[in-house]
């Protein structure tokens, strides 16, 4: 498989992988190659033993691959470097083969996967830079710092490219609320995300929170950052020019998170809480200074290449700068600013201390850049240079501690086409086979106060969502919207996936995640432009898990193609399992869309008494995998709703068009909980009720109100605009039906007990604060 996957990824984007998979195992035996040579290594290094190799997460055949590559036994430092570069987190060895199927191009895509973040063109010489990334394992071990450094890392990915961050989002999944650890994880993670983002000074405008017992030992913390840059000044990692100084910037290096990257690729066992690796502590204050300093030197034209130090810190960033630029790199660790004494080369190369950057500066601008960094009170040190040799050489205390072929470190990382089995299909559940255990009104009142459907205000009020003064739509609606500079353009963003659908049918679930992101952006009036993804799964060495991964990626791919919604960046997090029990397959999708005029954006809130409520899209009453089935009937069963991507597109285009024409007074997509829940949310958002017609005869009432058919929206229009709206939907071939009228303080469905909107609100707003206070 030559040229298998164009670099997809992240902290350490991979370049091209060639050769490895084609070779039969028997041929991959050690024989000293032409590159073999003696290198002066310091004597007191630990001897390389099979145990040591295993501790570095390298399988015997992977270690053999290293021997083949360098023609000799690696030094301890080199072993550390390989383990960092070749672990799952950095090398994407299990996922790469499948990721290449994702569509990554569109006329508006400036940079797809493979850089620190994706870049799209939004016109007027402006680009949006964004990416999502996981910090799942660190957040389980130390929720506050794990989540905080997750936010810090993703912000760095974005401003490394020359963009000023303008918004953040976060996608969170926790275990069963009754699990003894859940409450403190929620509290720590949310405080950590807020603690970092609020101090750094970026509004957190959206996200998602959910609970399920399958996340008991593996919570998910995925952070997304969005930045704004000029299309003509975007910065990349590739170094250029021989003999260029490599500069270290930011905070000092300590022994933080050594083995952090390996930890992110290892399954948790009973003893994980004892292992307690060195925890990284975030310093948002330093990061804010780093942001200002980086943007200042970029603007002054000092920077040739720049790379942040994320997972596997100095190793990944330096190797990547060289390899991408077809250059060698020599580092002199004696020059690295350290916070602790006696740090070894191994420790410095693997440290994951936060708030650090590596750059290649224009030599003539070095002094100017240094002055800027000093002004901001940050460390600045020349730690190496680019060389013509294509070797990665690390010196420390006068010794050469590593001397490795730089391209091969990335290119020759193993790639696995792991065996997988497809998830068996589940039976479709006929709506009338589900007997409603309670009335529609009772079910709605109950559902709206469940952990998954209740208001997440307790979470997002801990995030500064208004700083920068551009937040047009705050959290609580379908998508966050921020004004771009002085307008009139606006940017919408959302994070979505329905893990229970992915578990039941990975392919449909993958499609649905993309479709829901598309819908949430559409519902605020934005044209969906591109996505970032964060693929959270269990152990890929298990064929069923690999089957979930493959299915979801195919579904995502299909939806992205059908909706013109390419993937421009992403992250894979595998091995999310404890004692052999995996999380639900959770491919989180972060979608970004553009509004040409942010003032036209509509919210979910009902606006005026007398507005007509219309349902867009087809309703069959799909109850399989619905929250109604799970939380009201106690059954987690059946096939999830299929996604008709053509219908999704048609519905979306109609809604955007109607919003663009100013015809809609409110819009909300339908997802978890179906129609009744969506209507309740629209009512609660304004404290204004509605009178609703009875369900049509063709669908059982409970399936009509709670079914989770896709490609649907609820919108409201002024009575006078109704005919025009209906005509337009009809012309586009999109089903549209009248549901009722806005007004009063009750949500009243014909033939059902009317519910006071304030009663619904109390239940909706009540659950999470009560849970966090320990009182339910």
């Amino acid at each position, binding site marked *: 498989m030559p040229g298998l996957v164009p670099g997809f990824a992240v902290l350490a984007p991979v370049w091209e992988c060639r050769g490895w998979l084609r070779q039969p195992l028997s041929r991959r035996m050690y024989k000293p190659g032409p590159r073999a040579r003696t290198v002066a290594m310091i004597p007191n290094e630990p001897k390389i033993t099979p145990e040591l190799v295993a501790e570095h997460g390298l399988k015997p055949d992977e270690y053999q691959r290293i021997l083949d590559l360098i023609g000799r036994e690696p030094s301890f430092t080199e072993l550390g470097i390989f383990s960092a570069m070749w672990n799952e987190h950095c090398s994407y060895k299990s996922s790469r083969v499948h990721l290449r199927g994702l569509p990554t191009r569109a006329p508006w895509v400036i940079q797809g996967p493979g850089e620190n973040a994706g870049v799209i063109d939004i016109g007027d010489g402006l680009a949006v830079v964004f990416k999502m990334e996981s910090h799942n394992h660190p957040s389980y071990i130390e929720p506050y710092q794990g989540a905080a450094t997750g936010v810090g890392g993703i912000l760095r990915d974005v401003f490394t490219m020359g963009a000023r961050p303008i918004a953040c989002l976060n996608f969170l999944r926790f275990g069963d609320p009754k699990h003894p650890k859940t409450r403190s994880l929620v509290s720590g993670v949310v405080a950590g995300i807020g603690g970092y983002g609020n101090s750094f000074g970026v509004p957190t405008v959206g996200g998602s929170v959910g609970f399920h017992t399958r996340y008991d030992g593996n919570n998910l913390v995925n952070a997304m950052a969005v930045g704004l840059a000029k299309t003509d000044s975007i910065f990349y990692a590739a170094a250029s020019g021989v003999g260029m100084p490599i500069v270290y910037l930011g905070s000092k290096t300590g022994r*933080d998170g050594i083995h952090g990257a390996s930890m992110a690729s290892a399954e948790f066992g009973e003893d994980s809480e004892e292992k307690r690796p060195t*925890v990284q502590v975030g*310093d948002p204050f330093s990061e804010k200074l780093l942001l200002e300093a980086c943007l200042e030197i970029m603007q002054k034209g000092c920077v040739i290449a720049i790379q942040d130090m994320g997972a596997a810190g100095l190793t990944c960033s330096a190797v990547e700068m060289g390899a991408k630029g077809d250059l060698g790199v020599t580092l002199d660790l004696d020059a690295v600013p350290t916070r602790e004494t006696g740090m070894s080369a191994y420790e410095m190369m693997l440290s994951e201390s936060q708030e650090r950057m590596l750059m290649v500066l224009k030599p003539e601008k070095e002094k100017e850049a240094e002055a800027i960094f000093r002004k901001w009170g940050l460390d600045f040190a020349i730690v190496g240079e680019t060389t013509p040799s294509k070797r990665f050489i690390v010196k420390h205390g006068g010794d050469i501690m590593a001397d490795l072929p730089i391209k091969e470190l990335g290119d020759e990382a193993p790639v696995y086409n792991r065996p997988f089995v497809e998830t068996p299909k589940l039976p479709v559940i006929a709506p009338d086979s589900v007997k409603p255990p309670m009335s529609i009104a009772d079910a709605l009142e109950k559902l709206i106060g469940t952990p998954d459907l209740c208001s997440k205000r307790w979470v997002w009020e801990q995030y500064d969502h208004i700083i920068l003064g551009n937040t047009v739509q705050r959290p609580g609606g379908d998508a966050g919207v921020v004004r771009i500079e002085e307008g009139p353009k606006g940017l919408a963003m959302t994070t979505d996936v329905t893990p229970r659908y992915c578990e039941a049918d990975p392919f449909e679930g993958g499609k649905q995640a993309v479709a829901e992101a598309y819908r949430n952006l559409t519902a605020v009036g934005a044209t969906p432009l591109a996505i970032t993804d964060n693929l959270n799964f269990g152990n890929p060495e298990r064929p069923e898990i690999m089957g979930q991964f493959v299915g979801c990626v195919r579904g995502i791919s299909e939806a992205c193609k059908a909706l013109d919604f390419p993937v421009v960046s992403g992250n894979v997090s595998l091995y999310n399992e404890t004692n052999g029990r995996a999380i639900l397959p959770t491919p989180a999708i972060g979608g970004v869309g553009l509004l040409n005029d942010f003032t036209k954006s509509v919210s979910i809130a009902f606006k005026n008494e007398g507005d007509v409520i219309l349902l867009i899209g087809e309703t069959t009453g799909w109850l399989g995998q619905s929250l109604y089935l799970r939380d009201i009937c106690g059954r987690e069963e059946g096939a999830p709703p299929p996604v008709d991507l053509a219908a999704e597109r048609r519905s979306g285009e109609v809604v955007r068009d109607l919003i663009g024409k100013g015809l809609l007074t409110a819009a909300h997509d339908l997802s978890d909980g179906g129609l009744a829940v969506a209507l309740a949310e629209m009512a609660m958002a304004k404290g204004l009720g509605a009178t609703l017609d009875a369900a049509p005869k063709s669908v059982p009432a409970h399936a009509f109100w709670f079914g989770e058919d896709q490609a649907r929206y609820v919108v409201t229009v002024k009575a006078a605009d109704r005919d025009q709206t209906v005509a337009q939907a009809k012309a586009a071939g999109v089903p549209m039906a009248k549901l009722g009228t806005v007004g009063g303080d009750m949500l009243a469905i014909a033939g059902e007990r009317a519910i006071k909107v304030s009663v619904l609100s109390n239940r909706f707003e009540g659950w999470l604060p009560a849970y966090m206070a320990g009182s339910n």
Partner: protein
Amino acid sequence: MPMKARVYVTLKSGILDPQGKAIEGALKSLGVEGITSVRQGKVFDIEVEATDRARAEAALKAAAEKLLANTVIENFRVEVIG
């Protein structure tokens, strides 16, 4: 019997202390001479009601482990004053 006690919570060595770092810098620019390193910790002055010292200590240790210290990154020390 009411007793007074103190619980000290300090960062484990090697853990980054952004606060300490910022304070160090500030002291320098304020012209305070000679201070080469600052690490910030917490101290809790606690009143505890227990039948004897051992029980008081046990309660304080429980408090520190469960809440006052984040034992992933912090150490603590309990001191019953009497």
